[in-house]
């Protein structure tokens, strides 16, 4: 055992490495730890472990952590802490510690390495099961460890078995359906007071266990009497443990008990050198080996009485205890600087209640217990009511108090909630624990009712003459103890919080300095700034280059699905609103998909590669959704159709060259290809060698301009892009990003599914009735177009908007109202909203697309856009702004 130097509230102390901070402070004579959060009353150490309500600290050394129970901090050299008066504060600096997550499947997970847990582990290990034993304490032994009882070496040996994994310092935070657990393992805080960046500070375990043994043990309860919160009033089990280990600032103790545990602790205090003035037992008569031992040690025992009130010395520490009968009569006072309370055991039922198990009240033990043994879950030890042979108890939570006493009799220390608060709740007619809890805030602080839960139910029962289990049941929720969010985040931080998808050309975009736009998980170049251009200037330049010269865009993110089989045409006729079975080999067609509700679902261009081989493209964000959709119909409805679908999104990299000079550039890239309009028509596909790579070239345009999409295997995407850039240098080849793409397509009135649509638009709403086949007997969505709601007047329809002020870009999402009358008093009914809005180089002004009620019939009408502090006016137009005749697409 080595010494460790630490700082508490600015003062330096020395303790023993590895003991708890609470123990070290007690060893240094610190009995008054802090003051309570609401009433500023002096408070000291109560407990032994995570049940501690008072002795909280903020850790300032290492990674830092607020509001941690000093009972759970293992002392290391250099530890710096401040007492926390109920409220914590986070360190100002970033925590650079490493946090971690691990997944594990196991046959049996045992929670708790006390006698019961080890016994269960031994049983399952002997059956050949894989076993993980998790325990939140630094070593095995559970209660026995605190009692100073040796766990037999034979039992401990189970932890060394090959099929047993023992994880100390590991707290099961949540237990969920189907044997799913989440636990946090503290891996470095006990080593030193440093930030660890290479070994994780906390590892979060996600476990799937075929069977879970809950052997979680129990906490000791306090009793509720006047001034029961003074420093020096402790749980007897914890007081005896600290004192036995040499952390003993006490001279004279009084033990107040309702069960035989109080006698065992009295004996331990006595043996450690504390004068035990008396054991006060509420029971009139009690028996058992512990009582016999106390008697033979000559310790005074007073039966039929309990604690009523306490008084403090100048330091705030308890100096004497008034005891009385349960009704408050026949009081007498005993001097003591330690009042050790044994208010009964509260088995740790948290994990059991997380999965919906209701604990049952055992009056003989004065405790809520959980007896469970099914396929998924079993309980053992104190949780299951196994308290040993010498543990008779009275059902008693505190004496009758006067109104004055009730004001200083604490039920929940952390909330400073008293019997007076409690009585008011009962007086207001509340009977359920859930109501009393919310009215008084009992059980809602840092410890979440670990000490006060059963006590509250007991007190309600005592007040109403009912058993605690008639009041309601204890319900807890994860996490079991408070933990840093970083621990729960595990590895899902920073770059790893969500996958980033990139195309083969991404590195080029980054090097060119393009800011990225998030499109689903994809990173797409937003625009390519030249010199110190802002986005507005860059987009105007890029759009002008596309309309006048030639631009290039990375279209590799589009979803792509390979379809093969003799029935693909028939299948696509059912999936798309328009006809596909008539499409000629080598041709592409734009298609729109709807859900059965008739609402637009996705769109894209599909190409017939050969008679039975097709290639579908989807929106960038819709690829996975569309593949699921196709498989759904093939697998669950039209199973006789011979169609196989394969995702090829990343297999194909697509480089689109767009603009009047794209024909010249295409001919340079593929000298053997006849790129004339006669030989290579709009919507046609050709195969050619492009810069040494076999490519499929498609004349598809999302801008209205002459355009060629060069499709090559992904590994060659960057090579093709670089060739396009070098071959097009003298043609003003201009890379453009998603923003220019959006402007160019909006100028043509092309919709983007997800921007112009939100799942409530039919093709007709989008002014796309032309794409709805009238010939086909059925396709998905067709029947819904005839529904009353989809065919009614007044639906929002896609139109264009030209603001009167052509220099003003209406914000996307802005609401539109009819007319331009600024004097109409609010509220003014809105008639629609803007879906896309840009400044256009081609138009030399701003424009927008919008969904407007009855919009198609309102072209030419005035609209107004109420903005903060002003009203912008404009006019409803057609949704196509550039090249209504489609003259530009052929160059």
């Amino acid at each position, binding site marked *: 055992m080595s010494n460790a130097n630490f700082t508490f509230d600015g003062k330096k102390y020395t303790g023993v490495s590895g003991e708890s901070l609470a123990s070290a402070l007690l060893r240094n004579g610190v009995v008054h730890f802090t003051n309570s959060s609401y009433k500023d009353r002096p408070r000291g150490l109560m407990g032994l472990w995570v049940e501690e309500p008072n002795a909280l600290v903020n850790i300032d050394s290492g990674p830092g952590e607020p509001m941690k129970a000093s009972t759970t901090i293992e002392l290391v050299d250099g530890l710096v802490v401040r007492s926390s008066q109920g409220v914590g504060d986070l360190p100002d600096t970033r925590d650079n510690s490493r946090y971690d997550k691990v997944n594990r499947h196991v046959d049996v997970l045992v929670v708790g390495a006390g006698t019961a847990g080890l016994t269960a582990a031994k049983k399952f290990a002997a059956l050949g099961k894989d076993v993980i034993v998790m325990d939140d304490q630094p070593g095995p032994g559970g209660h026995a460890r605190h009692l100073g009882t040796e766990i037999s070496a034979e039992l401990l040996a189970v932890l060394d078995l090959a099929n047993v994994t023992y994880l100390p310092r590991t707290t099961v935070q949540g237990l969920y359906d189907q044997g799913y657990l989440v636990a946090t393992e503290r891996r470095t805080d006990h080593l030193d007071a440093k930030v660890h960046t290479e070994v994780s500070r906390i590892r979060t375990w996600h476990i799937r266990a075929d069977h879970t043994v809950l052997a979680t043990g129990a906490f000791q309860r306090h009793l509720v009497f006047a001034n029961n919160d003074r420093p020096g009033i402790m749980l007897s089990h914890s007081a005896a443990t600290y004192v036995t280990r040499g952390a003993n600032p006490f001279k004279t103790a009084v033990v107040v008990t309702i069960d035989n545990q109080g006698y065992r602790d009295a004996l331990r205090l006595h043996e450690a050198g504390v004068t035990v003035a008396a054991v006060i037992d509420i029971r009139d008569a009690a028996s058992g080996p512990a009582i016999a031992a106390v008697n033979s040690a000559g310790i005074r025992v007073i039966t039929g009485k309990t604690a009523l009130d306490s008084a403090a010395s100048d330091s705030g520490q308890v100096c004497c205890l008034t005891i009385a009968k349960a009704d408050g009569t026949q009081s007498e006072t005993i001097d003591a600087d330690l009042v050790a309370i044994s208010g009964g055991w509260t088995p740790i039922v948290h994990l059991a209640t997380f999965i919906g198990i209701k604990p049952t009240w055992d009056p003989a033990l004065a405790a809520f217990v959980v007896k469970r043994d099914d396929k998924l879950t079993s309980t053992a030890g104190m949780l299951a009511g196994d308290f040993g042979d010498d543990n008779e108890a009275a059902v008693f939570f505190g004496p009758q108090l006067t109104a004055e006493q009730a004001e200083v009799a604490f039920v929940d220390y952390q909330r400073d909630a008293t019997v007076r608060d409690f009585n008011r709740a009962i007086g207001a007619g509340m009977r359920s624990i859930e109501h009393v809890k919310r009215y008084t805030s009992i059980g809602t602080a840092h410890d979440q009712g670990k000490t006060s839960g059963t006590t509250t139910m007991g007190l309600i029962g005592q007040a109403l003459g009912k058993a605690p289990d008639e009041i309601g049941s204890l319900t807890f929720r994860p996490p079991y103890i408070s933990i840093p969010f970083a621990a729960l985040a595990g590895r899902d931080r920073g770059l790893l919080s969500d996958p980033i998808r990139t195309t083969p050309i991404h590195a080029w975009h980054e090097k060119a300095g393009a800011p990225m736009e998030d499109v689903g998980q994809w990173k797409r170049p937003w625009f390519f700034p030249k010199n110190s251009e802002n986005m507005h200037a860059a987009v105007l330049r890029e759009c002008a280059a596309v309309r006048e010269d030639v631009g290039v865009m990375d279209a590799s993110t589009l979803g792509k699905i390979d379809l093969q089989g003799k029935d693909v045409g028939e299948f696509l006729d059912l999936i798309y609103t328009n006809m596909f079975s008539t499409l000629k080999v080598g041709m592409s067609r734009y298609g729109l998909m709807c859900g*059965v509700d008739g609402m637009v679902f996705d769109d894209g261009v599909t190409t017939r590669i050969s008679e039975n081989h097709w290639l579908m493209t989807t929106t960038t964000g819709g690829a996975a959704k569309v593949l699921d959709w196709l*498989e759904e119909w093939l697998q669950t409805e039209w199973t006789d159709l011979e169609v196989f679908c394969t995702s090829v999104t990343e297999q194909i990299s697509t480089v689109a060259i767009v603009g009047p000079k794209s024909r010249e550039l295409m001919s340079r890239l593929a000298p053997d290809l006849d790129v004339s309009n006669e030989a290579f028509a709009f919507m046609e596909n050709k195969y050619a060698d492009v810069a040494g790579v076999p490519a499929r070239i498609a004349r598809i345009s999302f801008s209205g301009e002459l355009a060629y999409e060069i499709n090559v295997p992904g590994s060659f995407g960057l090579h093709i892009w670089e060739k396009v850039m070098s071959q097009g240098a003298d043609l003003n080849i201009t890379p453009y990003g998603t923003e220019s793409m959006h402007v160019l397509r909006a100028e043509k009135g092309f919709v983007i599914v997800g921007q112009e649509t939100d799942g409530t638009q039919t093709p007709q709403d989008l002014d796309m009735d032309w794409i709805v086949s009238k010939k086909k007997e059925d396709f998905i969505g067709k*029947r*819904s177009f005839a*529904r009353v709601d989809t065919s009614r007047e007044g639906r929002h329809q896609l139109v264009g908007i030209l603001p009167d002020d052509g220099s003003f870009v209406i914000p996307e999402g802005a609401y539109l109202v009819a007319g331009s009358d600024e004097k109409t008093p609010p509220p003014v009914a809105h008639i629609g909203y803007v879906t896309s809005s840009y400044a256009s180089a081609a138009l030399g002004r701003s424009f927008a697309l919008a969904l407007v009620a009855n919009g198609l019939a309102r072209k030419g009408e005035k609209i107004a856009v109420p903005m903060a502090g002003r009203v912008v006016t404009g006019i409803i137009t057609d949704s196509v702004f550039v090249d209504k005749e489609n003259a530009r697409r052929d160059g």
Partner: protein
Amino acid sequence: MLHIPCPYCGPRDETEFHYGAEAHIAYPENPQSLDDAQWAKFVFIKANPKGWLAERWVHSAGCRRWFNVWRNTITHEFGPSYKPFTQQPKSPV
């Protein structure tokens, strides 16, 4: 997190699946012959009982198969899973 028994791959985490609502609702033979109420029943009305329900799920991140499975909407327990167009196992009680 639910552990969903895929009939092809075995039990897997919920994150690998997408939900498909109530099972055994077939696409109507001839949608155009249905009146609005009948069509709306097919499109919009799904059972949401308290207790056992036969549901559809698709193992999107795995084998990509659609399948049916009994699930208890109260306890989150899973009953047997089964492939489409196979005999539906009895509801667990």
